[in-house]
Structure formats: structure tokens, C-alpha cells
């Protein structure tokens, strides 16, 4: 029972449609929910995630905001203080830097500062990630900034099913959530899937095992999950059995699933497309080193973006980003250690 006009209720759905369904269904469920962002109403969003929302719910609840990210976040905080649940879209997640103070200092801490009197059901979502030739300012994965800012949950789905379930979960969580959508997956045919007819949410802090294996654990999220799955296939040909874990939520993190896997494989590769230093890949390695040290038979390896911006032209872009090839090499190095 999808609430999305003109979207067939059966059939495989792509990632952005899953996002859209989550928004429509939650708007329907929760009359106190408001959506705001740049060009989300009349246009229906730069990627169409909010297409039809204005027509259905009106301009009171679907707000085309001025180009002012700090105000989008700050006013979302105010709406939440006024009892609303808010989805605020960043047209590209890269622009979130313009609203940074309002996120990390105002929104993230409101519950803390009021000793729990006020909840902040605000989901900041937006298209993220590289590999699409978007260059420095349309390619970022800047989730680590927010993981280092207490009071924010950080989510990054890699499948349509997860996108919908996690977004609905985020919109009911009552805490500020940073929701990183992978724009290169938005319309990717290969990952379309059937979505449940019934309402569902996905709990935070539960990783998904995308491929089972026994020799090495590949931990990732977002787009890089597919690089890991492909790497697992390559590795299989080379006689190495890789387990692929998609953590799905960074804060909170499902440490157990990772530790259990390493207890079995004794080898760890972490893959993400954010800059290496102080990125979430390092965080995972640090947690493993601290809490599951004995399980490791070889040094863990990070495959991340180099510590560079994302350059535009393809060969340069690919040079600085994780690739299947780099993952395979790392896994081989690890198991041969």
C-alpha cells in the first residue's frame, strides 16, 4: 500500500523511489511532519525524491526554502521545538558545510542541553558520494564530521529496502539523524528490489551481512558495499572467501556483527570513500583493535579515499577512490600475511 501517486505498488523499486515512498508514507502517518529544503516543492527535488509531495500535502508542510542551509537546519530545530517532525533536505550533502554550526552546536545538543525535555526529531538527508564525476562539491562523504559531533545518529543505506526502512526509522527515532543517500545508487537498475507492502522500519545498529565468507571480513557501507561484493566475487575466483558486512548505521554501530565475523575470518579490510584521516574506516579499525584485537591474524587495512578532495575528471577521480581492485589486493595481502 504505497502512498506515492503514480508509482506502481508492485514491481522492483529503485533507491530513490524507496526514499520517496518513505517520505510519502511518513507524511501520511504523521500529520505533524514537515519537509523542507531547496527546490523540494515546486520542482520536487533535484533528484525527484520529493516529487509530488507539494501537490499532495500543500505548501504549509512542504516548504521550498531560500538557499540558506544554516537557516534550513536552524528552522528545522525550531519546528521540532514546536512539536513537529522534520525532514530537511540538503540538495547535495556537500552543502551541509554551510549549515554546520546549526547542526553540531544547536540541533545535536538540544536534547542534551534541556536534560531531555525537548526531543529533536529532525532528519537531515541528502545525496552523497563520489564515482559520478561530480567533482569536489558534488561528491563528498563527510559523515565523519558528524560522527565526531555527539548527539547525531548517522545512517547510510546501500539498498532500496534499507533506504526506505532506515529513513522511516529515522523519522520516528526522535533524535537528529544525518541520512546519507548514495546518489549513484538512486536509479541504479541492478539494485532495484521488491519492497514490502506493509509498513516496516529497520532498527539502527544492526549491520547486514551481504556475502558470507570465512577468510577475510570486508566492512563497508554505502556505495562501497558493492565494490566489496564484487571484490568478494573476484576473491572467490582466487580461492579466498570474503565476508561482506554493510554496517548501515555508523552511529550507532553494530560492533557485534563485525567482531563475530572477525572471530571467524581473522582478517579485516575496511572500505569507505571518505578521506582516510579521522574517517569512519579508521574508527572501525580502532574499535576492533581495542575490543577484538585477539581475533586478528594480520594487520587490518583501510581502503579509503586518499586524503585529497574528489577531483573531477574520471581518471583522477578513480585514482583517489577505493576500487574493487584495491580491495582485492588488500584482501590478498591480508590473508597472505
Amino acid at each position, binding site marked *: 500500500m504505497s502512498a506515492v501517486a503514480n508509482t506502481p505498488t508492485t514491481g522492483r523499486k529503485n533507491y530513490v523511489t524507496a526514499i520517496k515512498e518513505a517520505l510519502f508514507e511518513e507524511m501520511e502517518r504523521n500529520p505533524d511532519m*514537515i519537509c523542507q529544503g531547496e527546490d523540494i516543492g515546486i520542482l520536487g527535488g533535484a533528484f525527484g525524491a520529493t516529487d509530488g509531495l507539494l501537490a499532495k500535502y500543500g505548501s*504549509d*508542510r512542504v516548504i521550498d*526554502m*531560500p538557499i*540558506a542551509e*544554516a*537557516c534550513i*537546519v*536552524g*528552522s*528545522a*530545530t*525550531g*519546528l*521540532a*521545538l*514546536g*512539536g*513537529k517532525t522534520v525532514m530537511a533536505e540538503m540538495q547535495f550533502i556537500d552543502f551541509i558545510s554551510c549549515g554546520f*554550526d*546549526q547542526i553540531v*552546536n*544547536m540541533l545535536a*545538543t*538540544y*536534547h*542534551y*542541553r*534541556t*536534560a*531531555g*525535555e*525537548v*526531543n*529533536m526529531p529532525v532528519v537531515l538527508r541528502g545525496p552523497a558520494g563520489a564515482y559520478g564525476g561530480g567533482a569536489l562539491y558534488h561528491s563528498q562523504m563527510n559523515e565523519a564530521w558528524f560522527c565526531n559531533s*555527539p*548527539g547525531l*545518529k548517522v545512517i547510510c543505506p546501500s539498498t532500496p529496502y534499507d533506504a526506505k526502512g532506515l529513513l522511516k526509522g529515522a523519522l520516528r*527515532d*526522535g*533524535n537528529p539523524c544525518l541520512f546519507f543517500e548514495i546518489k549513484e545508487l538512486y536509479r541504479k537498475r541492478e539494485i532495484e528490489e521488491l519492497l514490502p507492502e506493509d509498513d516496516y522500519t529497520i532498527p539502527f545498529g544492526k549491520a547486514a551481512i551481504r556475502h558470507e565468507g570465512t577468510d577475510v571480513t570486508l566492512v563497508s557501507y554505502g556505495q562501497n558495499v558493492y565494490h566489496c561484493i564484487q571484490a568478494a566475487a573476484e576473491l572467490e575466483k582466487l580461492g579466498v572467501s570474503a565476508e561482506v558486512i554493510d554496517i548501515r548505521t555508523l552511529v550507532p554501530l553494530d560492533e557485534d556483527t563485525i567482531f563475530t565475523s572477525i572471530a571467524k575470518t581473522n582478517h579485516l579490510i575496511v572500505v569507505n570513500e571518505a578521506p582516510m584521516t579521522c574517517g569512519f574506516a579508521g574508527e572501525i579499525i580502532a574499535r576492533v583493535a581495542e575490543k577484538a584485537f585477539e581475533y586478528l591474524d594480520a594487520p587490518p587495512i583501510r581502503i579509503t579515499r586518499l586524503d585529497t578532495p574528489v577531483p573531477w575528471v574520471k581518471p583522477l577521480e578513480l585514482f583517489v577512490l577505493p576500487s574493487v581492485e584495491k580491495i582485492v589486493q588488500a584482501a590478498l595481502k591480508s590473508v597472505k600475511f
Partner: protein
Amino acid sequence: MSRESGTATAEATPIHAQVSNLRPRDLLSKEDCLEMFRQVYLARYFDVRLIKEKKRGRLKGTLYSSHNQEAILVGALFGLKPTDWISPIHRDMPAFFLKDLRGDWNRPDRIGMSIEEVCAQVWGRVDSPGRARDNWSHIGSRSKKIIHSTSMLAGTIPVAAGLMYADRLNGGDAVCITFNGEGSTAQGIFHEAINYAAVHKLPVVTVVENNQWAYGTPFELGCATPDVADRAKGFGIPGLIADGQDVFDVYDKVMMAVEHARSGKGPSIVECKTFRAYGHGDHDDDRANKYRPQEEIIAGRARDPIGVCRQTLLDLGYISAAEATTYHAEGKNASEATNEDFPPEVVDYLNAGIEFALQSPLPAAEEGAMWVFKENN
């Protein structure tokens, strides 16, 4: 640096419904006026007393004095409805208890914060509305309709705007007053939020306390227009100027803006011309005597809001010449003023708050790690 400081130019801005020639103040009763006078004393006493408490060693932390700016707080808040919201900043500590303070100051149905709660906050005790998790003016409360600010100047204006958007959707008729220093109007978020409020005609009144100085920086290094109120023109909204030393002029201008807001016409800016009498905080008192010309300081302190208010009440015949000379706080700094310079009910009120605070315990250490997230189990 040649600037006119502390001068007030009251410009009549035609936003008040001109069905009559009455100014908002003309509708105030004699009791109201006397109450406002009492509140100016109360705000001053709060300031004076806290400095004394600190000198006595009973209080720690930086104090941001509102001395000489009390008329702004009292005048801006007096006409608000209990359902209205406010967002004070560092220099507005009395605003927390002045909101919704009328008649019986201890009446149980008050929505504003009690003096006990405010003192518990100042003393960092668990009975602070924020359980002393953040300091000084960084308290707020949904039930008491006070936005909980961060340190980041002008940062609550978008919150106020979003909140008023929600209130309108919820069928409310609230108005929100945010207080800001003139220096803070240089922040980008000031512009973003007021622009958004203007587009959506949200009932947000931005009171700018132009006390001529932003810490050690004079007005003209932060703003190129002669009046902060000019900033309003960039958003197509009214910009009013009030004499920040005159509680009734502030009341007039803010009430016009509030009425404008409440009737759906949108936000406005009310600049209250005043002067920061002492340092940025008490740690800055000595330096502020050096980096600011003496003549400027003397001129800026000359029109004490207590005296200005008293004169108006005298002119109105609401107090007698004898009554006008009962208390002598006017023109005195914190060392000079004593309890006898203030009405006894003012002293009693604050005494009760301080007593309460001193008896309130510190929060438990473990609370430091609590309420990072709302738990969902």
C-alpha cells in the same frame, strides 16, 4: 573614532494600527507602570547583587552585566502574552525571570521561569531548568517558552522562526522575541533567518540592543549603516528605533512590532539604543575603562533607566515627589549600591532565589553522559 553614542532617535514607523492616536503605553494602567518601574529595579538589583555575591566569594563564573540596559528587557517583555516565546542572550539574564512576571511575582500559574530556577542556573545547581549542563544564559525550556540558546551569536533566530512556523500551523498566535547585540547582526545566520521569516511573514521580533560595543569592537567596525534598524530594509520589513533607556519607549516600539507580527504581517527589527555601562563581562571591567574613551562612558551612563522611568512616572502623576526619592539605586554601580537602594520586595524576591540555589545540590557526575540521545526503548 567620532560617533554619537547613546543617543536615541525615536522614529515613528507607521506599523501600529492607527485607529486611534494612542501609543501602546497609553493603554497601560497605573499599576502596570508602577510594576514596570519595580521590574527595572529588580533587573538592576539582580545585576548588582550577583556582582556582590561574586565579590563575597559565594559565586563563580563570568557575569555579563545588563546594567543600564534594563529598560530594554522590561519594556520588551512587559506586553507579551504568557504563550509568547523569547530567546535571550548573555546580557539578558533577567529576561528569564521577567518573562510573564506581573502582579504577584510568586503566583503559581506563572509560565516564565521562577527566580529560584534562574538562581539555581547561575549557581550551577541541579534545580536549574537545564540541570546546569550549560552555563549562564544558556537555559531554556519548552514549557516556559524560552528558546535554549547556544553561544553562537544570532544562532537562535532561525530556531525562533521555525518555532513560529510550527506555532502558526498548530493554530497558535504566539510571537517570539529574540534578543541580540548590535555586533551579532553581522552574523550570516542573522540574515538567513530574518530573510526566511520575512518571506513567510513569521511573527519574530528581533530586538537589537545596540549598546555601541561588541566586546572590544565599536559599532562602526561591525556595521556600516548609522542605525542597526537599517538592516531591516534589506529584508523589506519594518525597522524601528527605540530609546533603550526609556522603558516606555521600548514598550511602545516592541509592542508595535509584536502587534504587527501577531496580526500576520511578519517580522521586524527593533533597535534599542543604549550603552554598555561596564565591561563585556566582569572580567573585562577594567579593560573596558581603557579601551573606551572616558567621555563616552560618562555620556553613555548618564541616562540611567531607573531615572528615566521615575521621571515619566512623576510626569504622569503616578508617584509623588516623595515616593520618587525613596530608593537611590540610580547611577550607582554594584559597589556603591546597597539593599536599601532598592524596594524591599525586590530584595526579598532575589533573596529567596539565592537561598534556594544555595541549597540545591550539584547534579551527579554521571549526568554528564546522560541525554545525549533520547532513548527509544
